């Protein structure tokens, strides 16, 4: 069903005429209009209508009857424009603009077309004049009534919303899957929708566009590592296997919503999962570089053999603790849930039993102790 807007605004028709007078032809989506100077008439064609030798007033009437096509042209040409290609492409993507005919799209937009971008849910609808309006909220709030969410309209508010996670912790990585819920941006213009998304997830639209154009510039691990100077100059020491661990540690969907496209080098892929995100990750980010510096220094150490006595359950508990920390689940373990190995009381008991007064694991053979604990320096 077509949701025909029953009129076109005078300024929309003026813009239409003005474009035809300067360019002779408008061909956009399913609309084709041509001005014939010799006869001073117009040819007008949509999926439903073909008309020719129209006078200006007949053209106006035809345009009014096919107002979906006209307002669609007006929105994309006059409101959005193609000066910023990635902005244009992104907004088209939000309504599958290159896939569905105008009439179908207008029908869908009447109900709202929804797309996900990372943890954002973006819904496009039509305003009365055919301009699009956008609503952005957290995907996990998809069922919430907008009135129960904190309403925003300034794109820059996205900066503050996304600085801390739901537990109030600083988010050093904007594309981490830890965006807090409970907010909504309503009635955004095309430009403001773009700016809001770009504030939540900086540069993701530009990179997604470059990828679609086939011009994405990937800097692989080696490129990035060899470029570093200063305190990060050492990370090119990391062996291939360690880089695999870095990617598996930092770059899966549970840690970052970008889809890792960088590999060890041009010829050598990494096998760690890179994620399924819609926007690409084109080089190791600063967080990965900073963490890699720490791992570079740690990887320089030789392994040693220690002998600790643990019961089978205690060994399992240490494994549980590592999993709980690695999967950020420590806050989910209830205070009195002593059935969880990473429970606080369980960890305290283990420390009492198996660690000395300096906080070090007690080795089975006390005479074979290592004293390298003092090397445990704190670095950023």
């Amino acid at each position, binding site marked *: 069903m077509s949701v025909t807007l029953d009129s076109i605004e005078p300024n929309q028709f003026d813009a239409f005429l003005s474009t035809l007078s300067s360019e002779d032809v408008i061909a956009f989506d399913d609309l084709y209009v041509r001005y014939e100077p010799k006869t001073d008439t117009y040819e007008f064609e949509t999926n439903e209508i073909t008309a020719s030798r129209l006078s200006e007033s007949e053209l106006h009437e035809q345009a009014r009857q096919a107002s979906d096509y006209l307002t669609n042209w007006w929105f994309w040409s006059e409101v959005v424009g193609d*000066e*910023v290609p990635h902005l244009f492409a992104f907004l088209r993507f939000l309504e599958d603009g290159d896939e569905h005919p105008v009439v179908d799209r207008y029908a869908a937009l009447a109900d709202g077309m929804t797309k996900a971008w990372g943890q954002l849910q973006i819904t496009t609808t039509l305003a009365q004049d055919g301009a699009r309006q956008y609503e952005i909220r957290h995907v996990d709030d998809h069922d919430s009534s907008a009135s129960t969410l904190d309403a925003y309209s300034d794109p*820059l508010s996205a*900066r503050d919303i996304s*600085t*801390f996670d739901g537990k109030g912790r*600083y988010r*050093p*990585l*904007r*594309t981490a899957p830890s965006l807090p819920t409970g907010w909504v941006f309503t009635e955004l213009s095309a430009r403001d929708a773009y700016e809001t998304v*770009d504030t939540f997830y*900086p*540069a993701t639209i*530009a*990179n997604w566009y*470059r990828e679609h154009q086939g011009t994405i*510039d990937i*800097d692989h691990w080696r490129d990035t590592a060899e*470029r570093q*100077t*200063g305190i990060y100059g050492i990370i090119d020491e990391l062996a291939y296997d360690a880089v695999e661990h870095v990617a598996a540690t930092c770059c899966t969907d549970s840690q970052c919503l970008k889809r890792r496209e960088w590999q060890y080098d041009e010829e050598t892929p990494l096998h760690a999962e890179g994620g399924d995100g819609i926007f690409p990750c*084109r*080089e190791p*980010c*600063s*967080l990965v570089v*900073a963490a890699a510096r720490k791992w570079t220094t740690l990887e320089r150490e030789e392994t040693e053999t220690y002998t600790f006595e643990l019961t089978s359950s205690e060994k399992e508990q240490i494994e549980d603790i590592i999993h709980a920390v690695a999967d950020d689940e420590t806050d989910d373990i209830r205070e009195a849930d002593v059935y969880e190995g990473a429970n606080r009381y369980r960890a305290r008991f283990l420390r009492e039993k198996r660690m000395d007064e300096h906080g070090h694991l007690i080795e089975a053979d006390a005479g074979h102790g290592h004293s390298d604990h003092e090397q445990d320096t704190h670095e*950023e």
Partner: protein
Amino acid sequence: MQSLVIVAHGSHLNPDSSAPTHDHADTIRSIGAFDEVRTGFWKEEPSLREVLRTVEGDEIYVVPLFISEGYFTEQVIPRELRLDGWDVSQWDSDGLSADHAVITAEDIDRTVHYCGPVGTHEAMTDVLVRRAESVTGDSDVGDGFGFAVVGHGTERNENSAKAIEYHADRIRQMDRFEEVQALYMDEEPEVDDVTDFFETEDIVVVPLFIADGFHTQEDIPEDMGLTDDYTKGYDIPAHVDGHRIWYAGAVGTEGLMADVILERAADAGASIGDALEIVREQTRSAEPAMGD
């Protein structure tokens, strides 16, 4: 179309690090001096690598929100922004006089005006003084007051100390404060002994840092004896050895910093109309700095 890109360090650990960058960008946006204002960071996003591809203008002014010329402004930023063929000699600087260079950014194949850091611009002196006004709540502060400009020192960067001395000299030449002293965290004269260097009872202490963080919120207050434990906060003014110390925190958080960013861009040829006057006036009513 004219674009301003403010580039800064940022932090993986501390959200306060980028807060002044965002605040000053917002100030400049609000007065409409540029068609767009973007921010890019070494440690946050958009990264220095990717910020330029979000920029739409054809006249692009890149202003580093850094205190001194050195490793970041001369090596890291040009490399990460992919300023093609950059060489520090293009600034023809003595360590304090970097102005701007016009250079092609390979990432977008457009020319950018790469400006010197805000910290060495002469307008920065006014921000230091404004910071003193803010922390004392007195727009005429000067009589009976000493003024200490605090820097990191030369351990990491020789030019860092040059910037401190430069602004201390300029404040001295204003003949507004009774005494002016440059002090350092890791070399003589040390900020730890601040009261030894002043006769005046009242001393305003302003760190020449871009953002508040570990040094300005923890080290310096404890080193000066404002508090035994920074987590407990300190008084403004705090009483130390018979002096009243008005500790201002990082100068970079002062609203007038937006003026220096604009000055840098204007010096590089940006057309900013009466933005400087507006910013100077608009940021004057900023709340006095709070220690916490």
